[in-house]
């Protein structure tokens, strides 16, 4: 089987939802600019790119009608470059990369781009409806609760207190701020341009550097009121009846931010790279997706990590650096607990709690962040993973070449 290599990775800075800089920029533009950056940074003849796979979680409105193909056309790629949009909820971006890699590995594509886009300020979360939370055949029969309830369920079941999750959140803010200060994201960041071609955003604007435990501790539970009104806690406890009640530890401060953003990763075979005169940065060592219990929903990273490690013939101790999307603090604490991962090799440059989580784009973003950091600190192996709605997990293990 052909090996798949990463040749480049780019991302937008993330614009916050409320009065954010990217609100006036279409999702199509966000995606277009990332594809153009991949082309221009690498002097890439786009006729060599067989396919562009784009993650997007709310593919309706301006993100509908196969946003991937729209972005490919709009970016001025060769007519022969195809494009399709995928949705694996929060892992869509990473799944897009994995699919691109799979296409290269099986010989269908020489170059393929795994990417993602989500303008959460323009196409609100949940705009695409869906049976999962609405049709009683799903929500009633399968004990479906919103993610926040699941996050608090993880915290309750696995013993993470409010202080634990707030301390994690504070560290995420600190690390993100430090990473920006030291320019650790420089390699990947492609500033977003406005309609005139002027830079409208060149940094992640959701961050709150200097946040302390007191500020975090003063925030109200983000999910208790909704649960009290509708009864989600009762639903969760019917699935986990050994728990008496949920600890409401998650707030806006220790959960991921709602932001706009886009990302892209160029994947290709060794031969394709040679032909294009590009140097591979890392090899895809293994990849995996998995289903997990849907009510607690966000424990997929634990299971999918085991699966990806097994496919790579590795153990968790063989991983030098970890990136797990900070959907909620308890999700990260749970993976660290399960594999005894030291905090100093997990999300070393912070994550979505500080910088935000543009749903469809995040997966490809954190893979790029991981690779940049592996290069900066000269690490060999890294694992990127995300928890996923509906009870799933997706992971990718890479190693430098």
């Amino acid at each position, binding site marked *: 089987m052909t090996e798949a290599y990463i040749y480049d990775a780019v991302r937008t800075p993330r614009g916050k939802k409320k009065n954010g800089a990217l609100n006036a920029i279409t999702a199509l533009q966000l995606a277009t600019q990332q594809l153009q950056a991949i082309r221009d940074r690498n002097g890439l003849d786009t006729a060599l790119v067989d396919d562009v796979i784009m993650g997007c979680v709310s593919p309706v409105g301006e993100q509908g009608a196969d946003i991937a193909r729209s972005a490919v056309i709009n970016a001025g790629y060769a007519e022969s470059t195809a494009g399709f949009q995928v949705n694996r909820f929060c892992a869509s971006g990473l799944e897009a990369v994995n699919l691109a890699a799979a296409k290269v590995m099986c010989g269908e594509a020489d170059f393929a781009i795994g990417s993602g886009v989500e303008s959460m300020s323009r196409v609100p979360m*949940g705009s695409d*409806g869906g049976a999962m*939370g*609405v*049709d*009683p*055949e799903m*929500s*009633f*029969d399968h*004990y*479906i*609760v919103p993610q926040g309830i699941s996050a608090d369920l993880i915290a309750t079941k696995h013993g993470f207190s409010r202080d634990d999750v707030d301390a994690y959140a504070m560290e995420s803010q600190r690390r993100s701020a430090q990473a920006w200060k030291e320019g650790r994201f420089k390699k990947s960041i492609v500033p977003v341009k406005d309609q005139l071609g002027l830079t409208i955003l060149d940094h992640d604007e959701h961050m709150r550097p200097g946040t302390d435990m007191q500020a975090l501790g003063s925030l109200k539970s983000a999910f208790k009121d909704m649960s009290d*009104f*509708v*009864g*989600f806690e*009762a*639903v969760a*406890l*019917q699935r986990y*009846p*050994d*728990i*008496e*009640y949920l600890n409401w530890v998650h707030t806006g401060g220790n959960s991921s931010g709602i932001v706009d953003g886009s990302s892209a990763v160029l994947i290709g075979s060794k031969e394709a790279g040679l032909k294009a005169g590009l140097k591979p940065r890392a090899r895809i060592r293994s990849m995996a997706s998995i289903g997990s219990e849907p009510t607690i929903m966000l424990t997929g990273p634990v299971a999918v990590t085991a699966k990806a490690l097994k496919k790579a013939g590795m153990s968790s101790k063989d991983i030098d650096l970890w990136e797990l999307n900070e959907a909620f603090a308890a999700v990260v604490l749970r993976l660290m607990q399960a594999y005894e991962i030291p905090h100093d090799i997990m999300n070393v440059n912070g994550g979505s709690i500080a910088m935000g989580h543009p749903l469809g784009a995040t997966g490809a973003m954190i893979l790029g962040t991981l690779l940049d950091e592996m290069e900066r600190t000269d690490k060999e192996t890294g694992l990127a993973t995300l928890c996923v709605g509906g009870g799933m997990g997706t992971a990718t293990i890479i190693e430098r070449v």
Partner: protein
Amino acid sequence: MKNFTFEIDSDGIALITFDSPGKSMNVISADVMADFDTLTAKISSDDSVKGAVITSGKDAFCAGADLSELGGSAAELAKLPEDEMKAKLFEQCFRLNRTFRALETCGKPVAAAINGLALGGGFEIALACHYRVMPSDNSKAKLGLPEAMVGVLPGGGGTQRLPRLVGLMNAAPILLQGKQIDANTALAQGIVHAVVPMAELVAKAKELVKENKLESKQPWDADKFRFPGGGPYHPAGAQMFGAASPMLRKTTYGNYPAQRYILSCVYEGSQVSMDEAIKIESRYFTKLMLRPESRNMIRSIFLSKQALDKGGRRPASQSKGEIKKVGVIGAGFMGAGIATVSVQAGIEIVLIDATQEGAEKGKQHAMDHFAGGVKRGKLSQEKADKLAGMITPTTDYNLLKDVDLVVEAVFENSELKHKITKMAEDVIPEGAVFGSNTSSIPITSLATASKRPDQYIGIHFFSPVEKMNLVEIIMGEKTGDYALSRAIDFVTKIKKTPIVVADTRGFYANRCVMRFIGEGMNMLAEGIKPALIENATRMAGMPVGPLSLQDEVALDLGVKLIKQTKADLGADYKPSPTEPILFKMVEEYERFGRKNAKGFYDYPAEKGQPKRLWPELEQFAPGGKYAEEQPSADEIKDRILYTQALEAARCMEEGIVQDPREADVGSILGWGFAPYTGGALSFIDTVGAAAFVKRADELAKAYGDQFAVPALLREMAKKGETFYGRFGKESAAA
């Protein structure tokens, strides 16, 4: 067309009067449906008919479908191959929808003049009309779809038409919780088009037909129809549809398929045309008919309860009599409660206590209860005052001289009860029956103090009397049929359900309840997490967990009871392995239960805060540690339901209860035994005696003698019998 009259007026509007001969209520039966089809054809094809008004010749408009007819052909259909059986059953279930759909698409305007109560199919007739009018001056005229309360779903388009009129938010309480609404609410919500005095009801309906604003078309058949409040994928609608499932799961634990299917009917039906929607409804109705819950709930909660409420257990030798005045002796919590519910049923009460102050306090309890009713708008101040006036608090036994019946509710002390019996019998008329509300002392022994032991009977209420609708009537050795009949007169008059129980320790309900609480304690002693015990018990369909219930009845009472039983039985007493838990809770920690805010739970002083399990219960687990491996919720559900059902079966074997209907209804009303099962014996019948015995044997092996199978059940398993088959007087209903 024997159920309807049909008169055409000078405007060409037909007045159709629903008036089934020989019945006090109009119900929808097979021949009513046939008549309906004839009527629709006539309205549609007769050129002289311009429109129609449907009303009723009875006080009520129509009380719905004949539940006893439901699933009548099931036995016959069961012989067919599965797919064929389902298709045939669907056709039967779709019959009503076809009929109503034909009516609303007949091409001419039809109005319902809803003169009185319209429930279930009765309300659905009205919904299938283009216009609806209700009276402003008949408080009995209400609309409702109570089907879900007996495990059925509205099968005549109710799940489709009502939400299309008022949206999911307003329809949900009516569809899912059996909420009935009055004329003004119906008008405000847009369910009816006009509310006028009864005398103008038909005229107003005719006027609406003449105006015919809808042009003989239902709103949902018009092109511009939009689902009120938004359908499932409208942004506002999605919020409501998304909330409906968790709200329903919270209260039903997934045990009630009727409600669950109603939700799917609304969700799926709201996205398609009415023609498709009613097929969806009938498919879910058919699915429901194929499950045991509907059968069991209809039988126990509707048919059996109704039969018992009508005095079904009155001996053939006796006839129904009137109860006008009752003496209640002992004005404590129980006595005051009995007085309260009695005056509400129009019975005059002499409330006697040892002191005038005590008697007055009992009356105050009733007045407080009525004041609550006034506050909630359920009762006028005038009525409340009148009810209070019907209670005479006194210490004077001479006031008992003209009572029809006495109920004593004094402390559980034989001597005291003996004394009171004598004092009362000195005064009461010869025909008066003496009832004791004892919960633990054998009636036969109490009756030794009576000069008329054949007129001495147990009338055992449950606490709180205002809420608990079961009454156990205890037959002492010498209790006669007359006393039984009078007790039934009393209990049915106060709108409680009587069951007849033999005279043994704990009678029927409390014996089973002791098993329930006991099993909870057993599990705690085995190291099962208390949260799991309590949650899984509620998931099994019980209203509260065993530890909660023990807190409610009080732990110190439990200790007292154990000591009393120990004293009574002497050497025969077998201590339970969980006794030390109770003794330690009470004697070492002074945790008495809810009454001192400390029991298995901690009860916060702050109002509105939830109770929480006492964190130190782990000490009662083996080695002070909860078991590493916790059982599944299903295992606990089985233990909880089986231990109670087995005790009920033992009560049948011992003749404590004799009629499976009483055992079932008693289990649901008396201690809330999982209503979806149809009761403790229906549960066994549904599992099947053989399978039940097999599982009980497994449980006995794993957990102990509380699961020992009585010989009766083993025999039934061997012969393939059911309780209703073997003991049922109404075995056809099984």
